[in-house]
């Protein structure tokens, strides 16, 4: 089993609102093999995401593997609803950066 940073195995790492109360992250891999390796590595878990962002695991609503797009989708609850008084990112489009250097196991 080896380890890699997500940015080294993915071609797209993006964040966006999924409605005003959820943020969703799409990680699209360079190849089907890379997606499968990450899936078998089993390290991309709600715990890993919660650690990266410093919130509790119950905020992670789902981690879905989506082979047709060689993609993983992660959906989390927003801290503040989109455009709320203390929100920092109305579109949720700049919340992806911590994922770039996240280390995942490849198997």
């Amino acid at each position, binding site marked *: 089993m080896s380890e890699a940073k997500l940015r080294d195995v993915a071609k797209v790492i993006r964040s966006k609102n999924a409605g*005003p109360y959820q943020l969703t992250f799409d990680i699209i891999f360079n190849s089907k093999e890379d997606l499968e390796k990450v899936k078998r590595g089993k390290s991309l878990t709600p715990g890993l995401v919660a650690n990266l962002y410093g919130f509790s695991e119950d905020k992670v609503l789902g981690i*879905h593997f989506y082979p047709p*797009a060689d993609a993983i989708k992660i959906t989390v609850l927003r801290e503040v609803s989109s*455009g*709320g*008084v203390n929100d920092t990112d109305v579109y949720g489009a700049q919340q992806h950066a*911590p994922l770039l250097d996240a280390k995942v196991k490849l198997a």
Partner: protein
Amino acid sequence: MGEIRLLAPTAILGYGFPIESFKKAMDLKPHLIGIDAGSIDPGPYYLGKGKSFTDRTAVKRDLEIILEAAVNEDIPVLIGTAGGSGAKEHVDWNEEIIKEIAHENDLSFRMARIDADFSKDFVMTKQNAKEITPLTGVSSLTREDIENTNRIVGQMGIEPFQKALVEGARVILAGRAYDPVCFAAKPISEGFDPGLSLHLGKILECAAIAAKPGSGRDCMFGILKDDHFTLFPLGNERSCTPDSVAAHSLYEKSDPFHLHGPGGELDLTETKYEQVDEKTVKVSGTKFVEKPYAIKLEGAKLVGYRSISIAGTRDPVMIDNIEDIIQKVKDSVYDNFGKTEGTLNFRLYGYNGVMGALEPSPNKGHEIGIIIEAVSKTQELANTVLSFARSTMLHIGYEGRLSTAGNLAFPYSPSDIEAGEVYEFSIHHLIENIDPVKTFPIKIEDIGGK
């Protein structure tokens, strides 16, 4: 059954499209032009205020080209979520633009206007009947939420569009609508598979964003048959690929396999994406699974008025002490005006301005951009609080300070900017036991008419 050809000129009415792409698309004889005109993404302000986030001149430019071509060729034009948020004021705004275009270009057509507003009384009645449920991450609706909400709209499904088509409308201008329905309503009426029709609509509503390279301001074309659909972009430099289309199918959604809409969900677990030629992708296998009929409600409430001041600091001693300084400024403002006068907020760009509480590496740069923001119950009070906070921060003393002339660099004079009303989303709930058609009033009108 044959085929039905659908054209999406642009991702949002007013985003534009190249004339060349549009002409090429019209040469392919579309049966329908669909335009999604709105989104909840720009935040709660536009729904709350009743204003469009798209520009009038840009919307008129797009619509003028589309309507002139469509009316001449007798192709129906279906517009969803008019005016950006799809409340009455937004539909009024868009209707006026359409009438202006018809008048200036001597166009005549039958138009249907479909409104999507929900009255507070109606929502209250449904709430009391326990027919309103919160969506994920949202609290249960209270009487106070409903009373404080400025505008409530519901996402209509295909049914009101289908009724307007039966009544002979050639231009349909609808308020808040589920994004794919301006494309899917007609094919489903004609017997095409609802799963494929809605999935194609879901991709087309973003026009060429699902192509490579993606763009919201270029045309996309979809051809629906009985067991699959194909789609391709019109711009020469763009192509659809199986992964560009598959990746788009999950865009902005919380779950890539199940996409919820009025009356059911799209099931993408068996969906197949195949390359047909250089630019074209074939999609099959998507299913529509019926569910009890529900409509998504959206509402926004006024929470105050905002004033901001934009500044920066380049002083390393100040940057080291920035949290203490902000706390001192806050204490000083609250001491002077009391803590009940609204929110005072400091956004520190170059530190944690983009991610706020989620920032895992709050490294301070050699300079920090600072937005001082006050939100209060009146604009005057917000101005007062901001002005006091700004002047306090400019001159406040701090540990180790050498630069005693002023702490902040202001790029603008005046330094204080009135940003106006602040809204927040207050309703994001499902309403059940609802008539898919009667809930959304349809008004038919013959425009022009020589």
